């Protein structure tokens, strides 16, 4: 073992949460060391990898990010590889095949860039509807942090309050909304005829102008798996700036233990390099921000005599309440073209369907038009028909234009039975793989049966669909939440209102894992807002120290 490094703040993870915190602490004059389990690559390498993928693999959105031996994650290359890392069980095991990337920059490399806020009601499920939990603070407390994140990431959105979600804002978006392509417009028009409003999404994508040194979006339509020009925020674009400010980033450093010492202060983290040589890193404050699966896994692995159930786990809530937005998909065949692939891969959603008194009985849901270009899918299907010549071209065009996909994402309640534990199976470094039990529960199932599926069929018909097939098996939305749940009571939660571990005064666990409820929208903006709130607390803590 070697004494490798030390810094005021040690940040494990280089995704959006880790990068926002690192930068704020550097700006406040503190030294920062970031540890990343995976490698660091350049944008062009990912773009090149993606362009050299066989068309059949393009539905595997992680294919451009092959896992390293030492930092594995779910690999969807084949049915066999897909079950190798995450050990999933329970009625909806398939729905927790979360795609994330253990690379420098984290999963922001291949996020869609969507930045929905929670609503005030999303944060008060227990008191308003008698389900789930209430957050330990209200929307008004979170709102300034939402605003700061929107400025930090460069979030575009509509200036018209009628099109904002929710229209409770202290500042305008730093950029105006992005335009719709024909498909999203057709979906918007269909929704309007049903009395529903399809809103332009708030997106961390530069709209019409350069922002923060990144160029404006040019509609390259590959936000997932990578923005080739860096118009979408990804944490990778933050890394050089962090280094320029004096931050140090160690890659291929797989943290496997959080070491607690006197008074249960965390005093070090230990990491393996790819050759399994162990290194110890000390600091004053520690941030574990390596996503909602890897963070609880690390905490559980770090059990010691003082913390027999794992670090930060006196409540036994670490790894429980695992959440996502269980997804169903409607495949449409249309008489008239909808056209996908114009603009970003996602750009709007119907959000009002996530709210209502019905939440006493069943989950709300959002509905969106999937705007990924369908040209490859159309070509594969047309070729499979054995067509040639003009008939082949015409069928490719028809199948590409006249098929579409609508996505439903449901709100899942925090349930302690949805639980991450350590598997007996080990990865290449001998680190336990995550085992997750997952059941979307009656709350979501009832929504799918009586609410969301009937409504998506209505939307499809209104778009002119001649055929609609709605999946019945829930799948993952990749919004990993809940495993280090926030609350005021240390007996039933892991972190306090600043994402500080109840058990360890100098350990912070910000991100999706800290979210008390999930809502229906993409979780990144809330994760990032919690990161800035935690960063404020860290600066204050160091100042007072």
């Amino acid at each position, binding site marked *: 073992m070697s004494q490798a490094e030390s810094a005021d703040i040690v940040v494990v993870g280089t995704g959006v949460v880790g990068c926002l915190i690192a930068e704020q602490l550097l700006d406040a004059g503190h030294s920062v060391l970031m540890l990343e389990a995976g*490698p*660091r*690559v350049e944008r*062009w390498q990912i*773009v*090149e*990898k993606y*362009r*050299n993928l*066989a068309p*059949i693999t*393009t539905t*595997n959105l992680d294919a451009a*990010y*092959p*896992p*390293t031996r030492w930092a594995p994650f779910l690999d969807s290359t084949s049915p066999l590889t897909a079950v190798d890392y995450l050990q999933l069980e329970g009625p909806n095991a398939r729905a927790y095949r979360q795609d994330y990337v253990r690379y420098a920059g984290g999963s922001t490399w291949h996020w869609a860039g969507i930045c929905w806020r929670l609503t005030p009601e999303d944060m008060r499920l227990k008191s308003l509807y008698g389900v789930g939990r209430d957050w330990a603070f209200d929307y008004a407390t979170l709102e300034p942090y939402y605003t700061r994140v929107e400025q930090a990431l460069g979030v575009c959105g509509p200036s018209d309050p009628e099109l904002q979600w929710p229209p409770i804002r202290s500042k305008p978006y730093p950029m105006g909304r992005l*335009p*719709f*392509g*024909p498909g999203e*417009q057709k979906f918007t028009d269909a929704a309007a005829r049903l009395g529903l409003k399809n809103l332009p999404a708030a997106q961390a994508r*530069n*709209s*019409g102008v350069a922002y923060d040194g990144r*160029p*404006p*979006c*040019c*509609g*390259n*339509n*590959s936000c997932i798996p*990578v923005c*080739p020009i860096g118009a979408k925020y990804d944490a990778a674009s933050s890394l050089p700036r962090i280094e320029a400010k004096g931050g140090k980033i160690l890659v*291929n450093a797989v943290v496997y233990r959080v070491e607690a010492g006197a008074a249960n202060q965390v005093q070090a983290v230990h990491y393996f*390099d*790819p*050759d399994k040589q162990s290194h110890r890193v000390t600091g004053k404050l520690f941030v574990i921000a390596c996503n909602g699966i890897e963070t609880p896994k690390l905490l559980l692995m770090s059990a010691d005599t003082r913390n027999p159930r794992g670090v930060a786990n006196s409540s036994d809530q670490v790894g429980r309440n695992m959440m996502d937005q269980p997804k169903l998909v409607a495949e449409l065949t249309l008489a008239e*073209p909808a056209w*996908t*692939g*114009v*603009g970003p891969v996602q750009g709007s959603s119907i959000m009002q369907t996530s709210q209502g008194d019905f939440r006493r009985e069943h989950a709300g849901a959002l509905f969106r038009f999937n705007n990924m*270009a*369908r*040209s*490859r899918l*159309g*070509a*594969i299907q047309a*070729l499979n028909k054995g067509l*040639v*010549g*003009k008939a082949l*071209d015409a069928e*490719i*065009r*028809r199948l*590409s234009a006249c098929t579409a996909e609508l996505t439903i994402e449901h709100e899942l309640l925090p349930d302690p039975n949805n639980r991450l534990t350590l598997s007996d199976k080990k990865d290449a470094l001998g680190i336990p793989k995550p085992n997750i039990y997952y059941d979307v529960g009656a709350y979501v199932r009832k929504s799918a049966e009586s609410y969301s599926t009937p409504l998506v069929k209505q939307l499809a018909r209104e778009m002119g669909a001649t055929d609609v097939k709605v999946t019945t098996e829930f799948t993952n939305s990749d919004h990993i939440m809940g495993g280090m749940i926030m609350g005021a009571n240390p007996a039933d939660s892991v972190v306090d209102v600043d994402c500080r571990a109840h058990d360890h005064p100098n350990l912070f666990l910000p991100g999706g894992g800290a979210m008390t409820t999930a809502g229906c929208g993409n979780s990144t903006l809330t994760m990032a807002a919690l990161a800035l709130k935690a960063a404020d607390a860290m600066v204050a803590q160091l100042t007072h120290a």
Partner: protein
Amino acid sequence: MLLSAFWSFGLKDCDSSADIGAARFSIRFTRRLVLAAAVGLVAAQPRLVRSAVAPDDRFMDDRFMALSRLLIPHNLDAEIGRRIAAELKTDRAPFRDHIDALLKLAHDRRAAVVEDFFPFASDQSKAAALRIISAWYLGVVDDAPDAKIVAYELALMFKPTSDVMTIPTYSISRPNGWGATSPPLSSMPTF
């Protein structure tokens, strides 16, 4: 060959080296190729590399291109044709036989376009013809996870919708320059 060499630069191939590529990368790639790749041109510039071709191979390549032009009524890139032919040649005798049979059929029926002779081909020849057509459209001879890509930007699958749909990672618009205009299906692009 450039593409195969570049394809092999997969992160899965990395060993335990903590630095994932810089050293090996600099050894295996010339400055010119690195620069080309850096601007994303490897798949987009098929003429970047020409391999030495034996006379017999050149003869077969010419016949392959002649057949391809009969099977596909569009402009075809010769370098991509060479790449497809090279992949198909791994099963050499049947490949040559299929080309011969299809060219003879086209000649016998005085075919100008694929519709003139394809319906009259044997099942085996049809399968071979469809494999060739599929390779030109998909940019890969056998669409499998580990397949070697012979074309991306110039793969014909993107062409029938090129007036509307972006080739992912490329752009046909400008900042906020797109809109909701929905052209009719009948407006097939020329390619």
